[in-house]
């Protein structure tokens, strides 16, 4: 087990390295030159060359990559091409709202989906199973932006129950209640997608376990349905679901970009769109790297959790 964990971590290291290379490569595809955007248009070619040299942009690509990597290891992500603030600082300002939004959506999505999935498996082919399965298909099929616009139309524009966007009321007190009010609709959108996915996994995993011999034994022993479902089946069917969390993270990040844009939620998703619009590639590169590391870490964690949770699994 310990050996597996060590090996899994060792494998993650070259992958992390690959992530930085690919990330650098993608951003280097960008046409145009950051220098053109930084110096004023009337700069002389000499001035341009000087700025280029100062930024190390006259060096070959691999050397630029190396400089960037060294800076990265020092925690320095460079400066924004558009606002000239340190990228680390910009990132820090936007991480909080995104973590808040994604975290709550994940929790809400799972809290709704897991019990529903269990009920569906218990009452397979009942009306409630069909209803929930239908909803889950809806959840995985509706684009976040359409659902987002839909809930704004209904709950914000027509019913006026919740604000249309942003994280706090402009000029408001920024209280917890205020933030909560702003959170409801975007969380609803993200949790629908996550929950729709999760219900289907829980249902099929539970059905799988319910058909196993040891559960028939439990039934034959006369254990109550409650005990069978909650003690014997649940534990065993939830273990494979751990891996789903690893799959959900990248989907969640993609969903968050669109959702933050629709609701003008001041997180990393909105920052991404703004950086794309202003061609702020240094910020974009940092967000992309942060997102990739999050996914990498989430996958590593779920793999290890999976190994810890399921004693049957042997790795060699």
């Amino acid at each position, binding site marked *: 087990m310990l050996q597996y964990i060590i090996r899994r971590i060792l494998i993650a290291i070259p992958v992390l390295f*690959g992530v930085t290379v690919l990330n650098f490569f*993608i951003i280097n595809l960008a046409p145009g030159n950051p220098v053109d955007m930084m110096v004023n248009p009337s700069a002389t070619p000499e001035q341009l060359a000087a700025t280029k040299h100062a930024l190390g942009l006259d060096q070959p690509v691999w050397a630029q990559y190396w400089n960037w990597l060294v800076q990265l290891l020092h925690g320095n992500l460079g400066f924004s091409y558009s606002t000239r603030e340190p990228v680390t600082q910009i990132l820090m300002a936007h991480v909080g709202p995104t973590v808040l939004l994604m975290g709550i959506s994940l929790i809400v999505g799972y809290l709704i989906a897991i019990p529903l999935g269990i009920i569906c498996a218990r009452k397979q082919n009942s009306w409630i199973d069909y209803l929930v399965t239908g909803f889950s298909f809806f959840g995985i099929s509706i684009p976040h932006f*359409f659902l987002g616009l839909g809930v704004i139309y209904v709950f914000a524009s027509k019913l006026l129950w919740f604000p249309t966007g942003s994280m706090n009321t402009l000029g408001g007190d920024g209280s917890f209640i205020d933030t909560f009010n702003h959170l409801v609709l975007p969380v609803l959108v993200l949790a629908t997608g996550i929950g729709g996915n999760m219900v289907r996994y829980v249902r099929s995993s539970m059905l799988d376990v319910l058909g196993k011999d040891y559960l028939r034994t439990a039934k034959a022993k006369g254990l109550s349905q409650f005990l069978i479902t909650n003690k014997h089946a649940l534990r065993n069917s939830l273990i494979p679901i751990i891996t789903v969390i690893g799959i959900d993270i990248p989907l969640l990040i*993609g969903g968050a970009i669109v959702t933050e844009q629709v609701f003008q939620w001041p997180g990393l998703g909105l920052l991404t769109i703004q950086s794309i619009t202003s061609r702020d590639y240094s910020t974009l590169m940092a967000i*992309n790297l942060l997102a*990739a590391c999050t*996914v990498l870490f989430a996958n590593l964690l779920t793999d290890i959790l999976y190994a810890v949770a399921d004693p049957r699994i042997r790795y060699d």
Partner: protein
Amino acid sequence: MGMKLNPNKNVPEMTGTETSGQMVVQFEKEETYLHMVMRRFLKHRLACVGVAVFLLILLIALLAPVIAPQDPAKIFNEFEAPPSAAHWLGTDPVGRDVMSRLIFGAQVSIAVGIGAVAIYVAIGIVLGLVAGYFGGWVDMLIMRLTDVFMSFPYFMVILVLVSIIGPSLFNITLVIGLLGWPAIARLVRGSVLSIKEMDYVKAGVALGYSTPKILFQHILPNALAPILVNATFGVASAIIMEASLSFLGMGVRPPAASWGNMLTQAESITVLSSQPWLWIPPGLMILLAVLSVNFIGDGLRDAIESQNAK
């Protein structure tokens, strides 16, 4: 494995064959694997509805120039007009006919959905076959590359790449296609690892077949079922992806019509609240298209998995 007795239609009739003296089950109708999957698929009611809806959307896409009442890019004098006899779904803020744009938007969704998936399935199959069959350092390299690609949140990296190389129908198809292969590659590799140990693959080697022949004619056909399921769900996700990119202004751009970019206007609160005909129809079309493909995928999975379980 072995012979499958089918309780439903094909009552097996037992006959002895003289040549071997063994009992052989002979089907009235010889059912191939494909027939079997088809029969199971057709039992899945939602999947059949999915096929019907998808075919309808495909037909709309193909016949768009014929059935659209107007040129989707033509600008009329009346803009933001509510639905009327002349413009069934009204006109957009620029004065274009929404109904016609809706019909032409089907072309974009179908093109990206099928085009992008075709590209990444091809890449994923080749990489998965090579990694699984040859093993060793080739496998190691491909799998680590897969890990690297899978570490990037799919949508985010597509968004960044498209913004760099420039948004267009061709570019988003290409980018989704070039980034979507890792899941397929892993799937194919897994199948190949088990299939290559089968004696029929060893027999192919012993018979002196070339490696490409073994890979593509003997291994691939037996690994195809899960790829098909995955690719179907992939089409649904590519359609959402295109719509989202176009919605964000990083996909198909006006005046070209895409269901996604038709919804961009609804970011304005006045359009959103007082002109629902502008954004609800394209949104519903996306939902319908994605839902139909997801139903097809679900039906395929059930048909193929219950087959494998027996």
